[in-house]
């Protein structure tokens, strides 16, 4: 993306916290104070191991949870805390989600047509029945299915086709932001590429913004303009895709990058993945503050850590 700095962010997240109280003595801090911006038309990739809080972040943003603290500004409207009815309406129509498991996220008792039309019906975004059918058929064709598919049930489709239905359902309301939570990880390799290409094509055509949550770094690199790396509820590093891949600063980012398998056997056989142990490194996420490396690249560190890590980078 060029010149993202000059534009207003579509989504501004500030110090977002999402805690889950397990019992009187124990609270899981799934997301513990993260801040980032997403600009219109770009793809922001969120990566991290399981349990790092990346899915929780996605779910808190679309308000499937009520965030514990922090601010979420979506297109100029505050959607954290208690929303005004018109803000909620705006959020529900302009932010959509694609889920991980295409087998589980579609209602097996509803026809594809009904699944896709549900959002339009709830928000009264159609003139008459003919208009509704037209909208459903248009979006079906856009995601590479045909109108004959509209009257079938989800179980009559393969995994890749179901994920296309999930994408159609998300895009039919013409949302500004789509959160794709591990949208391709349940699919077969040969189908993954099809779905990623589809998502890219639709972005070019409709200008949709994506928040792409995944653990497959090579796919994230391919699709994202900017990347945020999460670990244990903290956003440890964020920057443009090039900055993260060429100049990683945080040791966790480095270990993640070193773990990417390479499809070259001679290189792969000799590759040793770096290990990252938070305790051994003595990193305390809560003590760190965001250090700006460039306008877009920032890393979570204390001043002392920052000095140490930056030595062997090109900054």
């Amino acid at each position, binding site marked *: 993306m060029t010149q993202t700095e000059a534009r207003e962010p579509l989504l501004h997240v500030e110090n977002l916290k999402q805690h889950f109280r397990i019992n009187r003595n124990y609270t899981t801090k799934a997301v513990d104070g993260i801040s980032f911006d997403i600009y219109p038309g770009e793809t922001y990739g969120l990566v991290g191991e399981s349990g790092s809080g990346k899915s929780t972040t996605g779910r808190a943003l679309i308000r499937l949870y009520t965030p514990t603290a922090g601010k979420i500004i979506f297109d100029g409207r505050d959607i954290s805390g208690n929303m005004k009815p018109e803000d909620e309406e705006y959020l529900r129509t302009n932010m959509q989600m694609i889920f991980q498991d295409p087998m589980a996220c579609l209602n097996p008792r509803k026809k594809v047509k009904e699944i896709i039309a549900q959002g339009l019906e709830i928000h009264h975004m159609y003139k008459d029945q003919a208009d509704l059918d037209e909208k459903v058929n248009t979006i079906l064709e856009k995601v590479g299915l045909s109108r004959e598919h509209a009257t079938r049930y989800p179980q009559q489709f393969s*995994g890749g086709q179901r994920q296309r239905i999930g994408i159609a359902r998300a895009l039919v309301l013409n949302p500004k932001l789509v959160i794709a939570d591990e949208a391709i990880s349940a699919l077969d390799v*040969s*189908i993954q590429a099809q779905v990623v*290409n589809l998502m890219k094509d639709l972005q070019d055509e409709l200008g949709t913004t994506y928040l792409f949550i995944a653990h497959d770094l*090579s796919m994230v690199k*391919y699709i994202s303009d900017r990347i945020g790396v999460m670990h244990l509820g903290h956003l440890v590093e964020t920057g443009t895709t090039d900055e993260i891949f060429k100049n990683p600063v945080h040791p966790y980012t480095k270990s993640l990058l070193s773990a990417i*398998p390479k499809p070259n*056997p001679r290189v792969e*056989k000799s590759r*040793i993945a770096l290990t990252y142990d938070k305790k051994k490194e003595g990193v305390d996420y809560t003590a760190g503050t965001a250090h700006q490396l460039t306008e877009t690249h920032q890393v979570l560190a204390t001043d002392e850590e920052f000095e140490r890590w930056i030595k062997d980078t090109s900054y």
Partner: protein
Amino acid sequence: MTAKKDKKDRVLSVRDLNISFETASGTVRAIRGVRMDLFRGETIAIVGESGSGKSVTVKTIMGIMANNGKIESGRIDYTFTNEKGERETVDLTKLSQKEIRYRFNGKHIAMVFQDPMTSLDPTMIIGKQIMEGMILHEKLSKAAAKERAIDLLRKVGIENPEKRFHEYPHQLSGGMRQRVVIAIALACNPDILICDEPTTALDVTIQAKILELIKELQRETGVSVIYITHDLGVVAKVADYVDVMYAGRIVEKGSIDEIFYDPRHPYTWGLLASMPDTDTNSKRLFAIPGTPPNLLEKIDGDAFAPRNPFALAIDYKTEPPMFNVGGQHRVASWLCDPRAPKVEMPDQLKERMEKMRKENEGI
């Protein structure tokens, strides 16, 4: 076994295996003529999408095929040293599931499953789960078994094994659980270790560690390993030989170098090209069009033909035989017939090959 002396020690040989499943909607021909050899200390990776038959193949070897499955023809010869110290070869397809279970599973052929949370018993301490097989198969005393279990835990890289011995699976992290599963699989010194997507449920950072562990243990014990995976990164790291499966058939097989540096089958091209690596800059990913065939229907000709941009007229009529393209490299594609037109692999893959060649010069 044939009279021909093999230079290497053959452990397993699968010949013309055909398996079908009776389902409510008809007969599914899941495996169609699979041939495979496994030698001592070697690693084979079976690659393919879901439904390609890779899991069915190994489940048959383990004798844990679903009840509606039927072995139509073929044999699975397993060669091992029996209790009297003699070499013995049995055809696993002739034995009942029960017999395989009592005589071979765990003791000679062991398996690591995909999800360690579901393959461990949540109500039993892990130490006991490791000891079970040893006590059953090798009639070890409890004390001896415990000693060996702790030893195994140490071997698979679990710190403080004496304490961990008494813990339950839920007290361990995902990576540690998979290490325990590997310890259980290796408890009776098996000849063959089957790993069914051993790292799919694990994080990227832990994946590499588990694969390195299996490799390390393989060097120590000389066990032969069969990997089932769809992740070519995993294959590149561990395998000596690769079998690419599609719709119940092996469409390309060969050594790891032959498959990765000189792939011949369009399906293998598609698999390799559709996986982005961190240097992929092309605007679009290469995608194999369409979806895998429905094995309920009878397949005329090459099963891959409808998705194959290079399909020839003959592909729709006759199933291609295995062409020998030199070395150990075999390809089931009419494109390898001398009369076939020359086709080039997709550009994205060509770039990748070029890049790999450069990388390898640096080593």
